[in-house]
């Protein structure tokens, strides 16, 4: 039994390396875009954890059966287990924070480029978060209150904007439709085009 365990471990280098790679990947990306969800990496770390755990189970049982000298090995493996767990949780948590920040800074719709970086569960989380936020915002005032708007105090009711891409038709609250073609300029109510500016569709000129 010892031999098979040893053979397996030679291949495994130092514990926690893969988990750390995940953390490093996120740290590197802090000033850039969110990297795609590292499914493979996570799976490898969970595998390592499973093996460590099973080995520890065996040795704990052996110790209760009377074998001596195994405690330090058990402690070491346990430390590695916890380290892996911490790295994985931090990975998931950090991504969750960034996805949540996306909702507040940009909007409730995930553009395909951002969506690609998210795993299925993260997309589901975003949808549920959106829903919770919308429910809450509807409940705090008779007509609802968009908390994600006016992140800076507004200076005017209307703003002059330039369209940066071909967005198409945009329906205003009063029913009028504006055609947002690239390079056209418009004079629109601030509250209604703020989300489009934040998403990069429009540019605030004045």
């Amino acid at each position, binding site marked *: 039994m010892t031999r098979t*365990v040893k053979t397996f471990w030679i291949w495994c280098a130092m514990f926690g390396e893969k988990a750390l790679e995940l953390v490093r990947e996120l740290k590197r990306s802090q000033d*850039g875009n969110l990297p795609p969800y590292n499914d493979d990496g*996570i799976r490898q770390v969970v595998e390592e954890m499973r093996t460590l755990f099973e080995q520890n189970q065996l040795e704990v049982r052996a110790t209760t059966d009377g074998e001596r000298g195994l405690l330090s090995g058990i402690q070491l493996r*346990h430390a590695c287990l*916890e380290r892996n767990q911490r790295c994985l*949780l931090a990975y998931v948590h*950090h991504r969750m924070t960034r996805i949540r920040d996306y909702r507040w*800074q940009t909007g409730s719709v995930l553009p395909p480029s951002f969506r690609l970086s998210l795993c299925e569960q993260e997309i589901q989380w975003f949808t549920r978060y959106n829903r919770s936020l919308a429910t809450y915002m509807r409940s705090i005032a008779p007509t609802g209150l968009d908390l994600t708007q006016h992140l800076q105090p507004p200076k005017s009711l209307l703003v002059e904007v330039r369209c940066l891409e071909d967005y198409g038709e945009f329906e205003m609250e009063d029913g009028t439709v504006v055609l947002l073609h690239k390079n056209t300029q418009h004079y629109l109510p601030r509250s209604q085009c703020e989300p489009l500016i934040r998403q990069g569709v429009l540019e605030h000129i004045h």
Partner: protein
Amino acid sequence: MSSLTQSSSSTPSYSSGVPSSAAHYRQPPAAAGGAGDFFDLGDILASQQRVPAQFEQTVYRLGFLDAQSSGEHIQSGAKMELPLWLARALGGRRRNIVRIDLPKQYRQQQRDILRADANVVDLFKQGPYFYLMGVKLLFFDHMERSDLAKSLLETFLNRFRRIMDTSHHAFSSDVTMFTTRLDETERVLFHIGQRSVAAMEKWERGRSHRIEASDVVQKRRKRKRED
């Protein structure tokens, strides 16, 4: 993802990523931007840095960790460089599987250099998490512990003024050279200062009222331009 919720037979405490019996030592939260030390990426990376350690007991069946020996077990007396998180799990209070030594950059000689003039030292090279790691080293009951603690504090106090002053200066090559010698904590501090100044200048020029695309969008645009 559901496999993560499988609980192990012993439920470890999560308060500081350290096995539960050592949780009585409460690590203060990572400062200057750390959002609580458990989830903080910087704190995880800081605790990854290696520290010289000597095994005081034989550890069975994990001999493969010792690159210098080919034995099945780690012999008592074996010396290895271990990541701080592992050294902490195996050494320190109530655990004496390993005994640690201070890494070079925290020893007397380096502390003397810092005392002479803390401002000339490249703390990023010594780190990059010089303060965070230094604080973590204080966990171990080491002869030079109180000296090290004082040294960390004094180093920060001596470097602080220059960090504050430079963060208020406009972006320039001198400034970049300055920041390359700051450790991660100092860098965060520096950027906080810079951001306040930039926000103030933007307001003075009357550009604060302009709504801007969100950070995510701006980063994506920047990346597209660079491609």
